[in-house]
C-alpha cells in the first residue's frame, strides 16, 4: 500500500469543482489511491470511475448545496475529507469590473466554501473526524493587479477557515488551506501568458507547479498524522 493509499482507502473525499483543473486532479489522485470521491459541480461529470459519484451542485446557491448533501447522504454513510476547490475568476481592473462578476466570485469562492464546510462539519461531527482543505491562491500574497475581488475572496477563505478550525477543533476536524501557485488549468489559461510568466519568474521557486506539488501538501493535510495541524496555509512556490 502506498503512503497515499493509507490516507484515502476507506474514506470518502468530497471535492467541489471536480470536473476540471485542480479539482479533477485531486479527484483522480484520491481515486488512484483507493479512496472514494464525491464531486460537486454545476456541469455533468467528466470522471468515469466506479468509486466516483457526481452531483450537480452550484456551490454559489446555498439551497443547491443543501440538496447536494441530502442526495449524498442517500449513498454515503459519512464524509471524511472535503476540498473546497470550486472557484471562479474574473481578472479586471476594479473600475471596470462588472458587479455581477464580483458577486459571482464572492458567492462561489467564499460563500460556497462556507456552505459546503458548514454542511460537511455537521456530518463529520458524528464520526468525530474530518479534514477540510480549502484551495487558496498565490493571489493572496501577491495581490496582483486585476485580482482585487479574487484575491479578497481567497484571503477571506483563509480567515474563514482559521475561525472554523477553532470551532471544529473539539470535533477532531481540521481546517487548512493549500495556496496554489501557477499550475496549468483552464482558469490559468484565462489570464495573459506573459503576465503569468512574469509572476512565475518572480517566485522564489521560479517554475510552474506540477500536480504532484499539490498532492504532496494535500496528502499531508489529509493524513491521520496531521491531526495536530489546523488553521494553517501552505503556499507553493515560495509565496507567503
Amino acid at each position: 500500500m502506498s503512503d497515499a493509499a493509507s490516507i484515502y482507502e476507506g474514506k470518502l473525499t468530497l471535492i467541489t469543482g471536480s470536473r476540471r483543473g485542480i479539482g479533477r486532479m485531486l479527484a483522480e489522485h484520491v481515486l488512484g489511491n483507493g479512496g472514494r470521491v464525491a464531486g460537486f459541480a454545476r456541469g455533468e461529470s467528466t470522471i468515469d470511475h466506479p468509486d466516483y459519484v457526481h452531483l450537480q451542485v452550484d456551490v454559489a446557491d446555498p439551497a443547491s448545496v443543501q440538496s447536494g448533501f441530502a442526495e449524498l447522504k442517500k449513498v454515503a454513510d459519512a464524509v471524511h475529507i472535503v476540498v473546497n476547490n470550486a472557484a471562479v475568476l474574473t481578472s479586471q481592473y476594479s473600475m471596470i469590473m462588472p458587479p455581477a462578476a464580483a458577486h459571482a466570485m464572492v458567492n462561489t469562492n467564499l460563500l460556497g466554501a462556507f456552505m459546503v464546510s458548514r454542511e460537511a462539519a455537521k456530518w463529520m461531527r458524528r464520526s468525530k473526524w474530518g479534514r477540510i482543505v480549502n484551495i487558496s491562491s498565490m493571489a493572496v500574497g501577491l495581490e496582483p493587479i486585476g485580482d482585487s475581488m479574487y484575491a479578497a475572496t481567497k484571503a477571506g477563505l483563509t480567515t474563514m477557515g482559521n475561525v472554523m478550525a477553532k470551532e471544529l477543533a473539539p470535533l477532531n476536524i481540521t481546517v487548512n488551506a493549500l495556496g496554489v501557485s501557477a499550475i496549468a488549468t483552464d482558469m490559468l489559461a484565462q489570464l495573459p501568458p506573459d503576465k503569468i510568466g512574469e509572476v512565475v519568474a518572480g517566485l522564489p521557486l521560479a517554475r510552474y507547479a506540477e500536480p504532484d506539488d499539490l498532492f504532496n501538501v494535500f496528502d499531508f493535510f489529509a493524513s491521520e498524522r496531521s491531526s495536530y495541524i489546523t488553521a494553517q496555509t501552505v503556499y507553493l512556490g515560495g509565496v507567503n
Partner: protein
Amino acid sequence: MNDITKDNSLLDHAAVQDIVLQALETINDERDADDKLVVSPETRLFGADAELDSLALVSVIVDVEEAVSTASGQAISLTDDRAMSQEVSPFTDVESLTAYILSLPELA
C-alpha cells in the same frame, strides 16, 4: 429543499419534546459519568444558568433541526432571524424550544 412527503401528524408536543431530550442524551453519551446533564423538560439550554456550553448547544440545535426535518418532511431552521427576534429566547430550556418548534408555520 422542502421536499419529501409531508407528514406532521406525529409531531405533537410529546414527539418534539422527545427529540429535544434525545439530543441532550446524545450530549450525555459523550460526557464522563460525573459530568452528565440532568435531562428534563426544565433543563436550561441557554443563558447564565445554562447547563450547556456553546458547542454543546450548537450540537443540540443541529441534531434537533435534523430530527424535526426528517420527521416532518420539512426543512426547518432554528437559528434564523425569526428565532433570534423572539421576545423570550426559544433556547431558554427544553420546554421553550419545544413550544417554539411547534409554533413554526412549516409544521402547521
